[in-house]
């Protein structure tokens, strides 16, 4: 039987048998499987750590900014208070309403 007649005579069942024989599962190398898994675990681990580091840095920055702002406001209020007290002392005490 020649190649042409072989092709022509090929019916569905024969084709399925050929496919079944030709398309068999292949096994990836165990080294590849292990290496890829290890790579993904370290990738996931480092990714999460980096994420948490960013979140921690942002939270710290917000807290430090709020604390600094609070401190600055308190200092300004104290300075203004001191200025007010010294100003009144220079004028000779509290002003009287009576004539």
């Amino acid at each position: 039987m020649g190649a042409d007649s072989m092709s022509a005579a090929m019916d569905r069942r024969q084709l399925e048998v050929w496919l079944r024989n030709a398309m068999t599962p292949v096994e990836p190398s165990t080294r590849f499987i292990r290496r890829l898994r290890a790579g993904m675990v370290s990738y996931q681990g480092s990714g999460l750590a980096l994420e948490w580091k960013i979140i921690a840095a942002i939270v710290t920055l917000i807290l430090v900014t709020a604390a600094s702002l609070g401190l600055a406001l308190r200092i300004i209020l104290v300075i203004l208070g001191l200025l007010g007290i010294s100003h009144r002392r220079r004028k000779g005490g509290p002003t009287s309403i009576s004539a």
Partner: protein
Amino acid sequence: MTGQPEGELDLIRRAGSEASAFGELYERHVRQIYNYIYYRTGNHHDAEDLTARVFQRALRHVGSFEDKGVPFSAWLYRIAHNLVANWHRDRSRRPVVPFDEHLATTGSSAHPEWEAMAAEERQMLLTAVRRLPPDRQQLLILKFVERLSNSEIGEIMGRTEGAIKSLYHRTLNSLREEFTRLDAGSDDGSGGERAAGADE
């Protein structure tokens, strides 16, 4: 309603934050994806490279996976399909890569000449498969390599069982035509030798 096997949905939910959960998913699906890519690309080197990329991409996006009743493997196959499509596009100017030699050397060693002929046929058949449209290649891989039923293939490919049957019928017809075309193209005197392996 979920199309996930037992316990898989829980693994998927935990996979975004737990390395062990994603590792379990990886162990369950890596061989399927590797086989799919291997039969789409035709060599182990690219199959390894693309399989690695599929799982790296899956790892990045597994947190946004939504259970819509479609198996997790369908999601992985879709990623693999896109990466293989890019791979083919990048290589479109290059000739088709032949399948690795190991496929050509399986079988009995009692009759090496028969083996060689069978291997040549197998090579031609797989080349014909790789000339089919991607969805037809996927169907053949799922049916013959993964040995899945039409309904399981339908779940993965997002089609009804009837549509899969119909696609399978059309795929076999196209494959026969493609094979005949390849066979005619290579009919330069070696065809008669190959015929002996046809009754394998």
